[in-house]
């Protein structure tokens, strides 16, 4: 649908370097990356608010690099909602229709169903300053949807909301994407949001696109150590392949020996990525299992987080396992408990140094 072909752009201290990506119709596309990476600049470039210094932007195969924002059929929602404080809710929501030439009454009538849909019909005559954060966010979203955009652009839309409101808003966004078939591009630094909403995603670091593809693949099999770190892989170990037999490699990392499924050959420098979800923990001596990697160690920290707990184990290197809190209680795991960790060779994602 919209394609960036080697786009470079400098804007103050922010820059995009040679970014190529494709957003397809119906995608829920996430742009993730650390603060200052250039995510918002990229989003604004999709909207046409910044013209690239080099490269091309294509829409349905046609070049639109110089097409102004008002002709791109996009709508943008910022983190701070950017509502007009001196306009009532109905005027805020109908603003896009008004500037496109629709009369005030007609525009108000047009947006009435939207206000109902987003549960803000009772706020029609209120000013934004009198609304809660969640209500303001719904008004901003309704205003964006009112212009019937081809692409909805969202800049960290959930970051200013409390957890309960966030959950409701995630449902709203999911419905918009699935039921209305809307193409959505969302800037975020939340892996959880990406897990819940994204169909495809791009990782931007220092203005460069370092990974792009289906969300599940980017999140679980990152292409580089920095991406692995950014997408929240809990256990990342640098090591060297010492042998490889039929695709099952032996890797020495942090003084420990791991087995992992990879084509990496002996002598190759690799990075092992192990999700804490994939680490099985047994208290005490443990039992023999089919897992190719079994490591003995001592629990050094238990961090409870809702229904689960992250258990950090010193097994020569510190590895993290995620257990239910119930399991932690049943196994009597506390700091100092001897533990055995098991990881299946197939659960280890290996990043090869040349990839």
């Amino acid at each position: 649908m919209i394609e960036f072909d080697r786009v470079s752009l400098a804007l103050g201290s922010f820059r995009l370097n040679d970014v190529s990506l494709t957003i397809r119709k119906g995608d829920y596309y996430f742009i993730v990356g650390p603060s200052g990476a250039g995510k918002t600049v990229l989003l604004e470039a999709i909207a046409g608010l910044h013209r690239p210094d080099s490269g091309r932007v294509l829409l349905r195969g046609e070049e639109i690099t110089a097409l102004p924002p008002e002709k791109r059929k996009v709508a943008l929602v910022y983190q701070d909602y950017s509502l007009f404080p001196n306009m009532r809710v109905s005027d805020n929501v109908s603003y896009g229709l008004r500037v496109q030439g629709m009369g005030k009454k007609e525009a108000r009538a047009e947006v009435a169903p939207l206000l109902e849909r987003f549960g803000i019909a009772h706020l029609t005559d209120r000013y934004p300053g009198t609304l809660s954060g969640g209500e303001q966010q719904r008004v901003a979203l309704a205003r964006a949807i009112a212009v019937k955009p081809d692409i909805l652009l969202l800049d960290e839309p959930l970051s200013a909301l409390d957890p309960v409101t966030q959950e409701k808003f995630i449902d709203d966004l999911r419905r918009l994407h699935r039921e209305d078939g809307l193409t959505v591009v969302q800037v975020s630094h939340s892996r959880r949001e990406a897990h819940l909403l994204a169909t495809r995603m791009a990782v931007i670091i220092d203005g460069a696109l370092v990974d792009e593809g289906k969300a599940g693949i980017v999140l679980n099999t990152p292409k580089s150590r920095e991406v692995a770190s950014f997408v929240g892989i809990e256990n990342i170990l640098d090591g060297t392949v010492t042998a490889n037999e039929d695709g099952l490699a032996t890797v020495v990392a942090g003084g420990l020996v791991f087995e992992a499924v990879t084509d990496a050959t002996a002598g190759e420098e690799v990075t092992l990525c192990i999700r804490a979800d994939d680490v099985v923990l047994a208290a005490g001596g443990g039992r023999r299992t089919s897992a190719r990697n079994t490591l003995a160690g001592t629990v050094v920290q238990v961090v409870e987080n809702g229904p689960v707990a992250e258990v950090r184990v010193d097994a020569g290197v510190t590895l993290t396992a995620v257990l239910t809190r119930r399991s932690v209680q049943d196994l009597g795991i506390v700091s100092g408990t001897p533990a055995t960790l098991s990881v299946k060779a197939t659960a280890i994602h290996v990043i090869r140094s040349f990839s």
Partner: protein
Amino acid sequence: MVNGNPIIEGFIEAIELIITLDPQVVEITIRSLYVSLTATFFAALIALPLGALIYFYEFRGKHAVVSTLQTLYALPTVIVGLVIFLLLSNVGPFGFLRFLYTPGGMIVAQTVLIIPLLMGLTVSALSGIDRDKRYTITALGASRLQTVMTIIAEARFAVMSGVLLGFGRAIAEVGTVMIVGGNIRGATRVLTTAIALNTSMANYSLSIALGIILLAVALGVNIALSLVQRR
């Protein structure tokens, strides 16, 4: 001890002058309001579009222009008075207008005095509309002109605050109107120049009466300001 104290007597007489709508007090007050309101109107007419131009257009030296405007907020009124006097005097380039020692000349002087203030405050008011809002407006399909008009409409209360501050500076200043107007009784005498003259002549009651009215105007401006800023 009330008797014999000229200040307390002055206060009492001042209240009487206001309550009885003393013709001299009314005439000076009306002239003051007329001169300063007209000057504010013309200054706004010139400064608001210029301030908007400075805000919306990127050009080399923009920062220096804004800094200069801010410096001119504190422009000494007597300097403006002197410059306008020289320009409007018989030997000056605008002497043919015969504006010197007329309310017209005073309006010109006060207009010049508050234009930098109004321009600077317009730039500040528009800057209060953040970049994200500007981009949101554009992305929602607004043309450049519609974007500009929406931003100005959104900043209207801040712009109005600037205009009220300009009026406050105009009506309270004495330097330009004294030099350009000449403080002529029945012609160019305004609240501030009348207070200065009557105080020097020990005519405290009239000075105090005019002072109370000037303070009331300032209070009115302040109340209007806070009402506007509450929006």
